[in-house]
């Protein structure tokens, strides 16, 4: 780094364009949207300041609160499935891909990541076709294991639709934790592992005793990325279950609730200020998750390292 002396014109030239575009089209809208969430429309099409009234309404009004809580609850289920299935599966695949005994690692890596580069819209439709009773693919696949009688229209049943969609999302996104874990695992020096082997540790002990503690920072990053992505999700539910997130709102998450509130759907008219309020709640939830990660998880890790 060089200390600069004259007025640094070049600094402005380098920094201004990115900062300007980012501020005008990302940061300003985020804050302006929070501001809008404190306004309410008047009959003459102007808007008036309402303080936190929209938030109170969202959390207590009988027309809003049940939908909000339903979406939050469903969103946590969606998140839980990702944490319990996607991330352990990503860790397992990464552990196998980083193993010296596995052949064709690059080929496996490329294939396993493929679903992740596809659009969620296409993924949603593909799985709808697979599960369609007309095509009968899911029944055939279960039949391979002698379980054809268990086949059900999972996306159409209130009890199973949300978990099914979560698993479809896991199918698509497992590549991300897989690669992040893989990057962390191949970064571990060989000497550490050899030393443990010499001491007689088996593969299982080496993994949980040495490798896993060393990749804990990545575990945290994967966790917070999953949280942010899940509480911002929208496309999959909108594509497969439409804006009403059926059956009977059983797959409604915050993203679809936000869209419906903002744009309206069927009989419900769109409401920009209430939409901004839902976005405000999402903002607070996501911010909360990020702060928990930054202050609880990362700080604790640093203490352990010291």
């Amino acid at each position, binding site marked *: 780094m060089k200390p600069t002396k004259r007025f640094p014109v070049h600094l402005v030239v*380098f920094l201004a364009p990115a900062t300007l575009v980012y501020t005008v089209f990302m940061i300003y809208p985020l804050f302006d949207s929070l501001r809008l969430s404190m306004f309410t429309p008047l009959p003459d099409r102007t808007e008036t300041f309402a303080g936190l009234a929209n938030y109170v309404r969202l959390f207590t009004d009988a027309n809003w609160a049940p939908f909000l809580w339903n979406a939050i609850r469903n969103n946590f289920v969606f998140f839980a499935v990702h944490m319990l299935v996607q991330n352990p599966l990503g860790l397992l695949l990464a552990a196998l891909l980083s193993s010296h005994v596995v052949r064709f690692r690059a080929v496996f890596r490329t294939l396993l990541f493929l679903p992740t580069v596809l659009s969620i819209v296409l993924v949603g439709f593909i799985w709808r076709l697979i599960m369609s009773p007309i095509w009968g693919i899911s029944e055939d696949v279960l039949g391979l294991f002698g379980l054809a009688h268990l086949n059900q229209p999972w996306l159409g049943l209130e009890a199973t639709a949300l978990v099914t969609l979560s698993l479809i999302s896991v199918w698509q996104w497992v590549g991300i934790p897989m690669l992040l874990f893989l*990057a962390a695992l191949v970064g571990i020096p060989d000497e550490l592992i050899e030393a443990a082997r010499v001491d007689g540790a088996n593969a299982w002990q080496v993994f949980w005793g040495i490798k896993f503690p060393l990749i804990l920072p990545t575990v945290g990053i994967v966790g917070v990325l999953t949280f942010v992505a899940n509480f*911002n999700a929208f496309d999959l539910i909108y594509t497969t279950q439409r804006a009403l997130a059926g059956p009977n709102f059983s797959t409604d998450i915050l993203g679809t609730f936000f869209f419906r509130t903002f744009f309206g759907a069927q009989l419900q008219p769109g409401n920009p200020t209430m939409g901004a309020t839902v976005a405000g709640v999402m903002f607070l939830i996501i911010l909360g998750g990020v702060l928990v990660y930054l202050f609880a998880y990362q700080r604790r890790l640093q203490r352990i390292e010291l």
Partner: protein
Amino acid sequence: MTRRPLRPGRGFGYWAQVLGAHAVLLLYSGIALFPIVLVVINSFKERRSIFRTPYALPDAESFSLVGYQTVFSGARFDLYFLNSLFVTGVSLALVLLLASMAAHALAEYRFTGNAFLGLYLAMGIMIPIRLGTVSILRMMVALGLTDTLWSLILVYTAQGIPLAVFILSSFMRQVPGELKDAARIDGASEYRIYGLILPLVRPALGTVAVFTMIPIWNDLWFPLVLASSERSKTVILGAQIFLGQYVNDWNAVLASLTLAMVPIIVLYVIFSRQLIRGLTQGAVK
């Protein structure tokens, strides 16, 4: 002295482990590919064969392009494709240019507010731009940009900048200082030095390009909100609407899914090495 990594004894346990690892990877590769392959092969079959023999490759008897004909007569996929290409291409170029300039300034110069600006720009990595949609739509209406591709380009550029600056500045910090000092002594301007550094971080630019491109190409939300008119539809929005309308025409559904999927799969297979290498390196740092 180089030592070969110690291998466990090659007894029954070792081979069981090798076999088990490959079995799990093969099984999961099957799970990852099966739905995609199934859609692609059936998109080239006539309707009856789709249902009777879904797992067979198309043969002389079952081969049919009727789905593709319906797609091309029912929707302007050629136009949607050009729209997606334009939006993705211009946004990507803008992100790479603006972010590399900012990253260079953050990595190279010591000035008041450097750390703060770095943090400010990094904030956008964690907070999704989607949450500002209500305000973005109003702004685009005020600017007269709704239903134009430029509304998308501006949003995607803003969305791509945070992560790009973060990754590029961490790479640019590793470029040795002697190189820049030598250029300065030769009388190079600060802009010339930026031009000298760019080629040195080409792998990082490649990684950033892929990570910027995929979410832009695949996005549904902003095309739906900002640019849903017929002439500004992107491939994904076009496919989404087409699939909704032709939901019972299996040939058309399978063909449009294949058409929307294949470009990104081809690109991915070509660039997968670079993408994965970039990700694994970037994440270690």
